[in-house]
Each structure stands twice: as C-alpha cells, then as structure tokens.
C-alpha cells in the first residue's frame, strides 16, 4: 500500500514537472509577412493581405496615369465589423505603399490642426518674417480615398460535437471619389474568409 502511494506521488510530481516546463515563458521573433492565425478573428496577417490586395490593382489602374501624380486625401476606413479593429493601420499602410510608389501625392489630414497651430504661432512675431509659412499655399486634394471594412460571422448551430466552428468573412471596399465632380472614379474590393474551430472541452 505504501509503495503504491509513493509511486502515485512520484508519478504526479513527474507530470507536474512536465506541465510546468511546458508552461515556461518563451519568446521568439516571427516574420510579419508570415500568415499566422490563432483564431478566426482579424489579425496582422489579414492587414497585410488586404493592403497587398488593394494597392497593386490601384497602381495599375488606367484612371491614374503615371505622369499625373494626383493629390489624395485619405479618410479613415469605417469599421462596420463586430470586432474592435484599428482600421487606421490599414489606411496608413495603403498610404505608405502609394507614397513609396511615387505615383500619388497625399495631404496630411491628421496634421491640419497642428499645422494651423504652428502657423498661428509663426504669425505672432517670434519667427523671422522671411521664414514664416505663408497662408494659402497648401495643396488641395483632387481625390478622396475612403473605405469600409465589413464582416459576416457564422457560428455552427448548437448540436452534439467536440469542436465549435466559426466562419468569418471580411471585405474591404476601397473607393476613390473625384472632389470636383463627386464622381466615384475607382472602386475595388478585397475579400478574406476563414474557418476556425476550438474545442468545447478544456482543462
């Protein structure tokens, strides 16, 4: 009886040791371009796919010839999904890719208040008059670049099963609107769909 008890305690201790070692803190670098998904929700891999899927066709669009270099203003992508997604990351990445292509010029809408504040400061007499920013010299946007991120989520209906499955479909619609005429001159869409499952029973 005593032997059995000692073996039992040793067995439990070994299992506990393996468990603790498995739970040890572990950090590693991963390539941001690799597709890594832990569940069906939106993640950074999706952002990369969305940006890739939208920028390449836009650069090849005949509506914007290479020599024209149109001036754009980006409005934030509207999040119409059921997740708290920072859509600012998508707009920033699209803008960065387009600027790097040299095909478009951009107005920095987010810095408008700061620019105004700085201009007012310069006009207060502290700055050399020759170096002051002159009013009325800013570029005017020709096009508005805007987008909407949407999602449709489906969960597996209640039934006897070992896993819960979930499907999520994401779409991002990108729109370019001519500021003078209000005409939509370019539209594109990128879609992602994913299915993930998680066990119903856990520790």
């Amino acid at each position, binding site marked *: 009886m005593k032997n059995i008890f000692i073996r039992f305690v040793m067995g439990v201790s070994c299992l506990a040791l393996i468990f603790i070692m498995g739970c040890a803190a572990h950090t590693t670098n991963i390539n941001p371009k690799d597709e890594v998904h832990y569940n069906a929700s939106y993640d950074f891999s999706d952002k990369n796919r969305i940006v890739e899927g939208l920028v390449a066709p836009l650069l090849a669009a005949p509506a914007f010839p290479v020599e024209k270099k149109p001036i754009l203003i980006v409005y934030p992508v509207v*999040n119409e*999904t059921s*997740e708290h997604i920072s859509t600012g990351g998508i707009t920033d990445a699209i803008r960065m890719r387009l600027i790097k292509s040299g095909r478009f010029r951009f107005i920095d809408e987010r810095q408008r208040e700061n620019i105004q504040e700085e201009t007012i400061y310069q006009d207060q007499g502290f700055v050399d008059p020759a170096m002051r920013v002159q009013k009325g010299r800013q570029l005017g946007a020709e096009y508005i670049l805007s987008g909407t991120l949407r999602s449709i989520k489906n969960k597996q209906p209640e039934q006897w099963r070992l896993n*819960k499955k979930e499907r999520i479909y994401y779409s991002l619609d990108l729109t370019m609107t001519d500021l003078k005429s209000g005409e939509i001159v370019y539209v594109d869409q990128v879609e992602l769909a994913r299915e993930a499952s998680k066990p119903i*029973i*856990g*520790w």
Partner: protein
Amino acid sequence: MLLRYLIFAVVFVMSGCATIPLQKARMDFFSGNPAEADKTLGECSEMPERDRLLCYMEKGLILHYMGKYKESTNTLLKASKFISEQDFVSVKDQSTAVMINDRTTTYKGEYSERLWIHTYLMINFLLQGRPDSALVEAKQALEVFDEYPDPLEEDLFTRALIALCFENMNQPDSARIEYEKLEKAAGSKTKRPEPITTGKGEVVLFIARGRIPAKVASDVVLPPSIRISVPRYEESSSYSTVDIKVNDTVLYPYIVETDMGKVASKSLNDRAAHYLTRQALRAGSKEIIAREIGEENVYVEILARVVLFLLEEADTRSWETLPGNLTLARVTLDAGAHDITISSGYSNPVRLEVDIQAGKRIYRSVRF
C-alpha cells in the same frame, strides 16, 4: 484512508471564500464611496480566476458611475475578453463542482450579464464620442441576443440602444429591424424616436435606478443528509415613472425601460437544467462517499456528512452593482442651452445643464 482525509482537507480549503474584496467594494459603492470601491478591487488580476469576471464587471460599472468612461471601457473590454476565453466546458470546474459546489467553478456570467457588459460598453463609447466603436459593441450584443433569445427578449433598453447605434452610423434599415424586434418584445406598437429636424438636437439620457435584486439560495433537505441548494433572484422592485422637465416644462419624450431583475431571473431559469443536473450528480456522489466512509467508521461518517452538508451551497454570485431598472430617454430640443431635471419617485431630482447643437446628439448617464 489517509487519502480520503486528504481529499476532505483539499475540498474544505478550496471551498474557502475569495469574495471579501468584492463584498467590501460593493458596500463602499452603495454607501457612496465609489473611489474606495475602485481601490479595493485593484486591477482584478490578483483575484482568483473563478471570481475575476465579477471583479471586472463590478469595477467597470463603478468606474462608469464615477464618470471615468475610458477606464470603465478598458475594464469591461477585459470582462468581454474573459468570457470569450472561457467559452468551453472546463474539466477542472466540472469535477470540483460535482465534488464540492458550483461556487468553486469559474464564474462566466448569467446570459443577461454577458449582454449588459456590451450594453455598458455601448453607453461608454457613446459618452466618449466614439459611435463607430459603440456599433461594434451593438453587433456583439446582437450575437448574445441571437444566442439566448428567450431569456433576453424583455431587455428593451439594450434593444433601443442597439437601434440608436445603427442610427448614429447612418444605417436606418438595421435600426428599423431593431425597432421591429423591440415592438414585438414589448407586445404593442410603440412609438419610434423622431428624427432630428432642422435647428434641433437631441440629448439621450441613460437613467439607472435602484439596485438589481440579489441572487439568494433556496434550500431543500432530504434524508439522510442530502441538501439541495439552488440559486434564485429575489422579487424585482417596481419603479415609478421617470419625469423629465426641460426648463421647468414637463416633456414626454421617447422612453424605453428594462426591469433588470426580471431579465436576470429569466436568464438564470433558462440554465436551470444545467445546474440541477449537476446538483443531482453531486448529491449522489456525496452520498456514496459518506456511505463508503461509514463502512470503516461510523463516527467519521457522521463528521463527513456534516462537512458535505455544509459544503453544499448554491452559487449566488452575481453582478451586484447593476441597477434595478435602466431607462433610455431621447429628448429632442432646440439648439442652445437647457436645464434638464430628471425625477423618479421620492429620490432627489437630478439636474443637468446641456448645450444642444443643431443636428447633433449628446449623451448623459445618471443614476438614482
């Protein structure tokens, strides 16, 4: 034999209470000291996992009524995340629940409480001027409604709030669907809020009154020593109508309200089959243990029966700082400054000064 005593000791220790900070925080909050309540709860990460959700929910609500909407949002988002992480059947919880009682399991919230996390998040986001994030929460609230339609049907406040979130983001069709569901749940054709006309604005009031009924235990004792203890909500209090005066003139705006106790009680009853099954399993296993011990020593059996009897306790944990009634009022006003007086029953009226801008909607949260 030694192993059995060891199990007993572990069982006894595990059933110990970890809810002292929660009780203190609730007492502080209701005695008008929310800052102390917030301090008592701390970051909630030190709270045992089984009560952590309660900590997030209580703290989130306390911060909301302190006017700290951003901090409240962060805390309630943690509550929401915790629930989605715990969305599985835990072997550990089920085994301890069958051996000891349901209080040893990780609290995952009544269906109504899961919904009200999103309700308060919607309110917080609207108060912070973030209608897009409020809509995200509205969609998550709709998922909870879809999952548990019957027990949550009478939560008209949350339904009207979801519709409002759709209106804010210029999605009138989705708002209309929610108003239709609301009318169906109310059982009558109710009037819908009027659109904001030229030169006017709107103030949306989130009015909380009273305190949600407490969850209490109902005990039944069967021979020889079987104790069945199940949770139930106490009866809801009735609330008088809310009176709203603007610049000393009584107004009759669009009003929708939810009896929180009624919805919570329906949610608890909806999962009765789950906890009654577990209760039956537990009663059976405790009887087997007591009899096995009795085969070796009758005095130890008596002691074991006493301990097992005392360990049988209903899981009466709940989100206790919630109000007993939530009312949503939408008051359309001319642009300009206004004095609003909200009164309910014998409570002291609440006065608000608002500055309405044409075509805009502002929000205020008050609690009696």
